């Protein structure tokens, strides 16, 4: 499948932005600058970016606790994201969310979710709205291998199937739900096979290859917008870091990690676009330079921003009470 020049630049820029953002967050977290917990997306860039490359600005996504990558792929502002992780009032959620609930409804990013499987029912909502109002919008619902065993997964797939909702259920199978390997927790080898239980197409794709993800999600979203209903895509992928920062990763081997580092999504992309002369070294280097600058500026912005006033705790519970 051919991807246009502008889109290829966008894809590289977004994947790099995610990687650099996550690496920067990892460093900041280790020095104690970020409160709470972070769950890093490094390694999985091809999945978020490959899918969101097929989305319009007015489409929606739902996310997981590992939401920074989804935010960036959907166009949420970097400065607002960094400030949110710091808990500053200039954060995209005014410091009320942090990493685990980070969201930007204006950008169609309906939130990172602290409840595994919590986003699957929610994703059916905008899809239902799009159908009732006939807007042609679509939804990508990101979730992990762990969530595929949660009841909400099964309910949401069935509901989307019977109502032919325009939603793509995109499983990021990174082989572990926290410390629990997928081959232990999950009754079947390929989560995509669960699609047949709900009468919808189930596709397996290489989650380390953004071209593969792009093609599979393109087809699924075309189906969705043509009122042919949902698709389940399982992207085989890998998270480079722990479930959360602080995870000693005792449950994985260095060998296994090595095999996935050898298939780094950004490296694979870079190699292919240079070899096939789709992008030039100069174009890539320009993006690399800009990305670093943006991340640096975001950190400065976050550090210089104020914390919210304590009384801010009491606001934004209701529209009116």
């Amino acid at each position: 499948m051919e991807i246009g020049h502008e889109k290829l630049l966008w894809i590289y820029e977004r994947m790099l932005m995610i990687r650099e953002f996550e690496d920067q967050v990892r460093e900041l977290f280790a020095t104690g600058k970020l409160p709470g917990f972070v769950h890093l997306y490094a390694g999985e860039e091809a999945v978020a970016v490959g899918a969101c490359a097929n989305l319009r600005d007015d489409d929606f996504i739902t996310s997981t606790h590992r939401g920074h990558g989804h935010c960036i792929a959907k166009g949420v502002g970097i400065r607002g994201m960094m400030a949110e992780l710091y808990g500053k009032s200039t954060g995209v959620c005014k410091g009320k969310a942090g990493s685990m609930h980070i969201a930007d409804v204006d950008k169609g990013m309906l939130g990172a979710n602290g409840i595994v499987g919590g986003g699957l029912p929610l994703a059916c909502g905008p899809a239902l709205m799009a159908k009732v109002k006939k807007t042609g919008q679509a939804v990508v619902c990101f979730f992990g291998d762990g969530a595929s065993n949660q009841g909400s997964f099964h309910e949401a797939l069935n509901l989307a199937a019977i109502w032919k909702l325009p939603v793509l259920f995109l499983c990021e199978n990174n082989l572990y739900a926290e410390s629990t390997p997928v081959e232990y927790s999950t009754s079947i080898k390929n989560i995509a096979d669960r699609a047949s239980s709900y009468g919808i197409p189930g596709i397996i794709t290489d989650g380390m290859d953004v071209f593969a993800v792009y093609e599979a999600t393109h087809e699924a979203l075309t189906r969705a917008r043509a009122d042919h209903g949902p698709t389940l895509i399982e992207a085989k992928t890998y998270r480079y870091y722990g479930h959360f920062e602080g995870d000693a990763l005792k449950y994985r081997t260095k060998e296994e990690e090595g095999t996935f580092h050898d298939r780094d999504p950004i490296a694979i992309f870079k190699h292919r676009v240079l070899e096939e002369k789709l992008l030039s070294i100069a174009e890539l280097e320009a993006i690399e330079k800009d990305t670093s600058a943006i991340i640096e500026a975001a950190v400065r912005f976050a550090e210089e921003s104020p914390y919210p006033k304590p009384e801010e705790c009491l606001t934004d519970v209701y529209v009116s009470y």
Partner: protein
Amino acid sequence: MAGREITYREAVNEALRQEMRRDPNVILMGEDVAGGPGRPPELQDAWGGVMGVTKGLLNEFGPERVLDTPISESAFVGAAIGAAATGLRPVAELMFIGFIGVCLDQVFNQAAKLRYMFGGKARVPLTIRTMIGGGLRAAAQHSTVDYSIVTHFPGLKCVAPSTPYDAKGLLVAAIRDDDPVIFCEHKHIYNLKGHVPEENYVVPLGKADIKREGRDVTVVAFSRMVHTALEAAEELSKDRISVEVVDPRSLSPLDEETILASVRKTHRLVAVDEDNPRCSMAADILALVASRAFDYLDAPPQMVTAPHTPVPFSPPLEDFYLPSPQRVVEAIHGTLD
């Protein structure tokens, strides 16, 4: 307006119909809200809700706005939340409030918290209609009130009308409200008749109603218990005891001032609640009054509630379980002696 009387059930139906006519974003979803989906037209709208509350709405608004759902509360309540956050104004039915167990995450971790977590950028104008209450021998899982659970959570609102008039006005208000509202319909009073204006009107959330004025004791009662309290009040009027019955109508937000003003006038409080006593609305009212109107009380405040047990099936057992007018009379006497 001349006294047009309709039932509580008809009042709920009328509120839904009028709001669905007024606003194309209002959609209805739930198990058997129509019934017979996908069947030939003559077999559709088979139930109109398990108690017939939503009958006829499919015929007027069609299957795109009146959606029967599979038995998947997590999925369809979650879908209603997501749809509310992105432009619709859904009314989802949770058939019995006891079923909140299977979708509690969507209600209290998602619906209640999205606006706050997203720094005020999200709005969830969702209404969840649900049946509460006992008295129909429906046994433990289908007879609870459980409204204290949803009242507890910041981010949710909860209303429990006791009359047809309040039911229509509060449902209109709930649908128009931009926050998630749990609308509690007491199944025992669906056939209760009362005066209901034909036109569109609103009973505002957060406003209690004095159902009977009195001087000697304040009885705060919820949902069907309002009628239990009114029976007790009528009984006691024969002994020249004047009972004021306050119907909060709205549990969250709660009209604290009306309750406190009543106690400042009567100096006595009895709270009547069909719920189990621990962490109940009754306990909540007593705490409110004890902490904010202590000096006005001439007697310890009393609670009349169900016991700390599940709801039993057998009629004499359920009748023991539910607060009766006689128990309310006794509690009121307890504040006067």
